[in-house]
């Protein structure tokens, strides 16, 4: 540290001495070594197994799996939300009373993010990132981000009734989660419209 401040003093106009440049190189080398040693953390992980999420939501007694067939109309709506067609023609959900649970996936940058979404009376009651496969951007699993979705509902154009503040460095993951919240609300509305219990 003393060396550093002595360098700063020298930078303020004093004539450069060879030792000044030597110490400057030393500092650069030290910085490189520090960067080299910095741990590279991975954001990947199963944070909550989908089965455990269901157990948690339904107090260890999840209802049987139900399915929603993706008709042409539903498929078009889903495609407008996602920006691409759904990857399956039949979606699973679990419902009890006014609650329905959707375990959905959407690609953030390169890998799918698995998210569990609880919808209650047409609003997002809970949202959890269950499996995150991207190498970075997993801050979207933190409550400070996910809590923004609580109470959200769909308005015209299948948009959320609120703005979701993104997480810097996780723009694509933020976008993927927002799409999934919209999709879950949309699918829940479809299941009600199609007379599912």
């Amino acid at each position: 540290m003393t060396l550093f401040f002595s360098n700063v003093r020298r930078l303020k106009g004093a004539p450069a001495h060879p030792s000044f440049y030597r110490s400057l190189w030393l500092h650069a080398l030290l910085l490189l070594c520090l960067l080299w040693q910095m741990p590279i953390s991975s954001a990947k992980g199963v944070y909550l197994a989908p089965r455990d999420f269901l157990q948690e939501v339904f107090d260890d007694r999840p209802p049987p799996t139900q399915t929603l067939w993706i008709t042409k109309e539903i498929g078009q709506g889903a495609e407008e939300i996602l920006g691409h067609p759904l990857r399956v023609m039949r979606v699973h959900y679990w419902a009890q009373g006014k609650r329905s649970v959707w375990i959905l996936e959407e690609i953030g940058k390169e890998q799918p993010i698995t998210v569990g979404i609880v919808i209650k009376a047409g609003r997002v009651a809970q949202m959890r990132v269950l499996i995150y496969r991207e190498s970075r951007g997993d801050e979207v699993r933190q409550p400070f981000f996910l809590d923004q979705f609580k109470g959200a509902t769909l308005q015209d154009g299948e948009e959320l009734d609120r703005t979701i503040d993104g997480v810097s460095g996780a723009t694509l993951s933020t976008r993927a989660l927002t799409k999934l919240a919209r999709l879950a609300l949309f699918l829940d509305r479809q299941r009600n419209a199609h007379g599912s219990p």
Partner: protein
Amino acid sequence: MVRHKKHHGVRLRSLFLWHRYFGLTAALFVMTLAVSGVLINYSDELQLNKRPVQADWLLDWYGIAAPAIADGYAAGPHWVTQVGERIYFDTQEIDGAAPPLFGALQLAGTLVVAAGNQLLLLTPQGKVIDRVGGLEGLPENIRAVGAAGGHVIVQTAQGDFQGDDQLLAWRSIDANGVDWAQAAPLPTPLRNTLVKEYRGADVSWERLLLDLHSGRLFGRIGVAVMNIAAVLMVLLAISGVWHFFKRKRR
């Protein structure tokens, strides 16, 4: 004073000489980095991540060998095959299917593929209808898939199970007269196409450019060379600026 000026001139010339050598050495790398960098920046627009590299010599360079293809499963007029870690419906990779492949069959116009820890239901065109796994009640440790009496049967380490019409509820059965999916040799043209398909799918142009940019294309030595080139470019910048101010001072 004269000696000092002469000495100063020699130092400046020597600095200029070093600057030229750094420049000459770094030129090739600057070109490589600049061109690959610009292309990487426009990777999405140019869809480079979706364009597979198909040149055999480049795939050989990456060491992507054609995998040994095991026999496939005939499901109606179609074939379901595992190639490496991918599962194919004819020549099209099945979205979301993970190995190992345990079997495939056609039942009432729907293809049922048992792979990894799930059953995949496909249309005759290969579009995924649904994926059914443990979360939906599918028994674990599947070893084979078959059909009996219009129902799908799975053989697991815990016994045989019969699925309901939706394949969302399973009950244990004593399986008799089950028509289990049997592996069979693939037709040669299909086998050849699959080898080509598999090799080409692994390396995109984006991957190639990223590896060229970082030097990884040439292994650890390539990365080291690129690091040295980066240092050279820094030295080039420093010596250039230094030279500029020294000349200005004169």
